[in-house]
Each structure stands twice: as structure tokens, then as C-alpha cells.
């Protein structure tokens, strides 16, 4: 199964990836990231619940997104990776341990906390 990338119009900062993200399909994601990263969203969420396979070519996409957003205070988060994908992510520490969430709700709670901290600091 090849890669499927879905970006919901209502929530453009979340990319739902399904299928295989490998050296063959990574260029597709690169192309999408080119468009998304231009807008420099404050956060970019990869929903990997339907991603079956991930190789280093895919990981490079995540690293590239981080490199693009994190210096500007942006945030890259990964939600609900399957165990085999999580194993790969962990091996190469593609995202910090705090950047991987069990599901969207956990991510929302985390983001709310961040906003609250920012508000408190303000």
C-alpha cells in the first residue's frame, strides 16, 4: 500500500499519513511539506495512526519539518504511531520524547497546557 497524505481543510496543520512512508513515497510528503512549511504554522501534527511502515527517508521529513519550524518557536508533534513505526522513531530520536502523543486528545491537553503556561508567563 503506497502512501496517502490527507490534510483536512479545517485543520491544515495536521497531516494524516496512511500506508508506507519510505524512500519511494517520501518525495510525496516532501512535496506536501514544501507547501505547508512555507506558511510556517505554529505547529505541525503528523497523525501516524494509519502509517504501517516508516524508513529513514520518512524520518528525514519529520526532522526537516522540525528544523523548519522549531527555530521559530513552532512545534512538530507526532500522534499515535503504531509500534513498529514508534520503534523506528525512537531509535533515531526523530522527535523529542515529549513530541510523541498517544492520541489527538493528549496532544490537545498538552497544547492547552503550553498555552496556559504562555498566558501565565505573560
Amino acid at each position: 500500500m503506497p502512501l496517502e497524505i490527507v490534510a483536512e481543510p479545517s485543520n491544515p496543520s495536521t497531516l494524516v499519513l496512511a500506508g508506507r512512508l519510505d524512500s519511494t513515497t517520501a518525495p510525496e510528503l516532501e512535496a506536501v511539506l514544501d507547501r505547508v512549511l512555507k506558511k510556517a504554522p505554529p505547529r505541525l501534527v503528523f497523525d501516524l495512526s494509519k502509517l504501517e511502515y516508516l524508513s529513514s527517508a520518512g524520518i528525514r521529513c519529520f526532522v526537516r519539518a522540525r528544523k523548519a519550524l522549531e527555530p521559530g518557536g513552532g512545534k512538530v508533534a507526532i500522534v499515535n504511531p503504531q509500534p513498529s513505526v514508534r520503534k523506528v522513531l525512537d531509535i533515531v530520536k526523530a522527535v523529542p520524547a515529549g513530541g510523541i502523543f498517544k492520541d489527538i486528545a493528549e496532544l490537545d491537553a498538552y497544547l492547552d497546557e503550553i498555552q496556559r503556561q504562555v498566558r501565565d508567563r505573560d
Partner: protein
Amino acid sequence: MLFWILAATMPIYAGALYMSYQATAQRLEHDAERDADELAARLAAGMDAVIRPIEGGIRTVASQLEEIDPPQEQYPARIRGILAAWPDVYGSTIAVEVANENAAARQPYAPYLFRRGGEVAYSDLATASYAYATLPWYRRAADSQLPVWSLPYFDKGGGEAWMVTYSVPFFRRLADERVLAGVATADLDLNWVRRAAADVPLGSGGMGWLVSPPAADSFLTPIGPTPRRLQAFDASLDANAVRVIGEQMLAHGVTFRLLPKGVTAQPAYLAARSLQTLDWRVVLVLPQSELLAEARRLLRRQLWLGAAGLVLLIAAISFVAAAISRPVHALAEAVGTASEDHLGFTLPDSPRRDEVGVLTAALRRMRDSLKNHIELRAANLAEQARLEHELQIAASIQQAMLPKPGSRELPPEVRTAAALTPAKQVGGDLYDYFTVDDTHVLFAIADVSDKGIPAALFMARLAGLLGVVATSGKSPDRILHEINARLVEDNDACMFITIGCGLLDIRNGHIRYASAGHDAPLLRTAEGSVASLAVENGAAIGIDSSAEYTAMEIVLAPGDTLVLFTDGVTEAWMADGAQFGTERLVTVLSEAKDGSSDALLRHVVDTVASSARAADDLTVLALSWTPRGVTWNRSEKAMRWLIEPQISNVGVAQTQQWLRSILAARAVAADLINDAELIAEELLTNVVRSLDARGCDSRMSLDCELTPTQIVMTVRDDGPPFDPLALAAPDLDADISDRSVGGLGVTLVRQLADSCRYSHVDGHNVMEIRLHRTTV
């Protein structure tokens, strides 16, 4: 027929003729003998007739002498009377008795009158020199006191001639006593006897003699024409010997017999009779040829008559037999011309009412009904031939429905081999395979519940439906469902089909397989093991419109072969009465050296053909998945696949897929498959990237070796020597802005593999990765 009739009747006729001949011959012989005997008797009677009156005359004289007792002076007169009365008497005397004391005379007195020179001469025998009282002619009559004939004697002193004498005593009555008074005699000259015998008629044949009793002076004279006949018959015949034999016969009371050999030159009979007057005999020699001549003549006539009768009999039998056999022969000739092609032989119009007529009518009926029968049979044969021809056409049409080698364009990744042997000309088995789309090939095997034409027609419907339904690209379970739904309709014949249907993905060797009551296929792996697929069978097609089917999924590794078959294989009968059976099929498949679909098919078909007799249609379909760029070989310890992809990302993706299929086909655990695939991708991607940079014609390969405990992957390329493991590991904990994007792949490989080792061998970069094998 004539021959046999004659052969049967002739001996009977000849036998009867012979017996009749024998009886007649005996009868004639007997008659001839009796005639001869009678002839002798007649001769004797003839002699007696001459002599008896003389006897009577003398006895009369004697009785007159006794009654009258005339004086002696009258004796000569009386004697003269005798001579006058019987001219045959030569001489006669009346001799007186003197010895008797009561005698009248005291002086011997015997006046004897006899014929001499035509006159009667007188002489007295009572002389001293001729003591008549002592002579036999006197003495015997005197002593016996009865008339008696003397033996022949020469009368010396008396008649001076050979003679025989009849002596009759006479007596004188004195008171109550009769005393001998003398003897009256009559002499018969033997010359006279000879003449008398010569005058006796002898009849038409034979030689006879008159013979005196045996004594010192025996007398023997031929009768009638005997001397003349004796000359003609046997001049040396000794009449005396014949006389002696005749005496012996009479002594034994025999009057007729065959003379002993040697007495006569030719066989002859002897008849003998005693005279009633003289104590003489008649002997008669009759040549057998003469005696039986008449009998022979009669017999000859009888033979001629018999022969004539025989000829007539043969002629009559021939005529009657011909009257029967000719029409029968004609019938036989007419029937003999008949053959299967020519039954139009003509039979005679027989108005006959006998057996021949009945036979002719029966033959005519038989001919006509046979003709009808043959015409009917010819029509049947023609019809049968037409059906046969149609069946052949049907068989060729049916064969045409089946894919032939090369007739279906299949992707090169798929190898098929199939054989179908119908039990009859047309069968109810079917196999098929065809390309559904760019990536899928459908294959199916089916068995209609029956054999022959109904099965073939039903199978044709199935073949058509399969082509239509399967091209929609649906999963096999859906295909079966739809075919079932259509075949259940109007299935009044209540036929059903078992079918196995699979859809092969040529990219990865994945097969979805569904079965409707069909025998589970056997999978022979590249390693040579054979196992039955755990198929979940649905109901046979054509029975239940609501039947549902479940598809199972299997993965073929390159080198694996799936073998589908119909029950004609497993239910073929072995010579020992057992069925071929699935277990035997498994054994046959696992023993095959070459695991290719072609070789396996040939092996199975040959084995079944040589060891078993098919009772049903027999179909085998073998299918294997052989992606280009993958080769395999098997050693004792391990199985290895060598993947040689094109040098591109597509090649890498294909390699990953094939690797995944190989591992999945060998039930390697899913996460391990994932690791292996990831490692392969990372390593091959690096190789592709480095070779791409060189832009020259290069090669790379991935060798996957499976042992029971390990997965060993070896990546080779002929690029510039490069050891990825020698690169410094990227700092994974560095700030994101400082992090390198590359180097992650090698990190993954290091982390996932149990061991990894680089070497440079023969101008090749060789990276060997080992994974501990775990199964599902």
C-alpha cells in the same frame, strides 16, 4: 448323402445276401448228400429186385419139398423147373441130408443141373471127391436151418466157375419134429452178377461197385458206366480201398461221408448200402464237384440275382436320395453365396410341401429378417459414427476452452502447467487461468458432478461464467458467490460443481483463494516440503443460491508451486485396489527433484498414469510465482533467494516487496519482517544513491538466506569501496538546528540487526546482516 446311405445299407444287404447264400449252400449240400445216399439205396434196391425172386423161388421149392416130400427121383425134374423158371440161375441142386439118423435117405444124393453151352447139364454132386455135406454152401444152411447166401467161391468139381449160392434148408415132419431133410440151392454165376451190376443204371454221376463181404476171396464189380467215369475221374482209384472204407462206415452205421484225403485225387463222397438179399454192399463214390455242381449252379444264380438286386437297390436309393439332396444342395449353394454385404441370394420358389419346402420357407424368412437386421445395424452404426464424430468435435471444442501452453498471455512472473485427461471423450473437469488486470492472474480448477456430455455442457456454462465474472477483478469468494447464484438458476438437472479459484498478485505472490467443496490444493515449497492448504470450503456450486464463500490468503515465495487437482487424481485406482489418495500425491510431489510447475505436473501425471487407472476425469494444474530478478537455490542447511533488482528506487521497492513475500511465505514474525525490510531499504537506498552518482552500469543484489534460526541478508554492489558502518554515528541528541538529516538509515540498520558486518570482496562491497529468526 448318397454315399452315406449306401455305406449304411450295403453292408446290411450284403450281410443278408451272404447269410441267405450260406443257408442255401448248406441246404443244397444237404440235399445233394441225401440224393447220393438215396442213389446208393436205389442201386441196392435194384440189385435186390433182381435177386429177391430167385430167393423166393428156391424157398418155394424148399417148402414144396417139405410138404409134398416127393420121391428123390423127382428131384431133377423139380430142379429143371427152377432153371426154367429163373433164367438167371446158373445151376441148382437139392442135396439130401444123410447125417441125420431120421433122414429118409441113407445115401448122399445131390442131383445138380446147370447150364452149359445153352443146354442143361446134369451131374450128381454126391461123389467121394465132392463131399457136399462138408462144403460151406451146404453146411451153413444146414447148421443154421435158415436160408443163407454163401460167400463167392470157385465151384470146383461142380459148376467149375465163381459163384454164390443161395442155400435153403428143407425139413421132413416126423411126428411132432421137423428134421433136416436137405438143402435146396440156387447158384448164381458171378459173371452174371457182374453183368447184372453193369446193367444197373447209375444216374447222371458217380462211380459205384457191388462188393461182397470181406473174406479171403472178395468179389467186386463196377456198377453201370463206372469204368468209363473212373477213367475221367481218377484212373488210379483203388476200388478195394474204397470197399474197405465202405465196410468200416457200415460197421458204424454210417451210410454217407466225405472220403479221406489221399484216397481220391479230388474231394469225393462215399455212399454205402447193404443189399437186403445178398450179404453184399453197394459202394458209390461221388466227386464233390459233381455232387455240388447243381448246388453251385443254384448258388451262382442266387449270387447273380443278389448282385442284380444290389444294383437295382443302389439305383433306387440314388434316385430317392437325389430327389432329397438336389433341392437341399441347391439351397445350400444359394445360402453359401450369402455374406454380410450380399444377402440378396435367391431361393428357389418351392411349391414342395415336404421338409425341403419347409426348410426353404424358413430360410427365406431368416434371410429377410437378417437383411432387415443388418440394415438396421448399418443405420445404427452410421448414427453411432455420427454421434462419435460429434463427440469428437465436442471434445475438441471443450479442449479449446482450456488454456494451452502459450495460448493465454500471462505475465512472466507466473508459470502454469496443466493437464486434463477426460474419462470419456468429453469430461466435466475444467481448469483455467488468465490475466485479470496488470497485476492479477486468476486461476481455477473445477469438477462437475458427473461425467460425459451433461457434465461437459455444464462445464461449458461454468467456463463462460468464469470468464465473465472473474474479469471484474473481484475476490475469488465473490466470484464463486456470483457464479453460484447464476448456476443455481434453472439447474433442473441438479448438477453441481466443486471449484477452487485463486487470484494471484504477480507483484508479491499473494494469493486469495476460495473453494466451493473442492479438494484443498497442495503447496510445494521451494525447499521441497508439501502441505495441504487449510482451505475453508463452502458449498459446491449449483446447489444453494445463498451459499457464501470465504477467501483465504497465502503467500508464495519464488520457487513455491501450488498444485491444484481434481478427485480424478486421488480417486484413481491402484493395481492393489487402493485409491491413489492425497497422501500418495503429497509423497509424489515431495519426492520430485525439480519443483517447477512443468516438472511437477509431468511427474504427477506420469506417476498416476503408470501406477493407477483413472476412473474419472483427471486434471492437474500447477502454478508458481517467479518474479524476474529473483532466483533461488536450496542447500542442505538453508534456502537462499537472490534478488537482483534494477538500480533505482523502484528496484528497491520491488526488492522490499519480494523480501517481504519470501519471509511472509515462511511465516516469519511480522515485526521481524518489518525490520528486515527496513534494513534492506536503508542499505539498498544507500547503494542506489552511490551508484546513481557514478552513473555507470552497475549491479547490486540482496541475498536472503533462511536457516531455521536466522535470517541472513547480504547486500552486494560493485560500487566504489564504501563501508557505511565506518561513518560516525549522527548525534541524535543534538539541537535540531545542528542535526544532520543523513546517517539515520545506518543508525537504524545498526540498531535493528543482531549483527552487521562489512567486507570488500572481489571488488564488491558486501554487507552482511543477521537477524535472529522468530516465527509467528
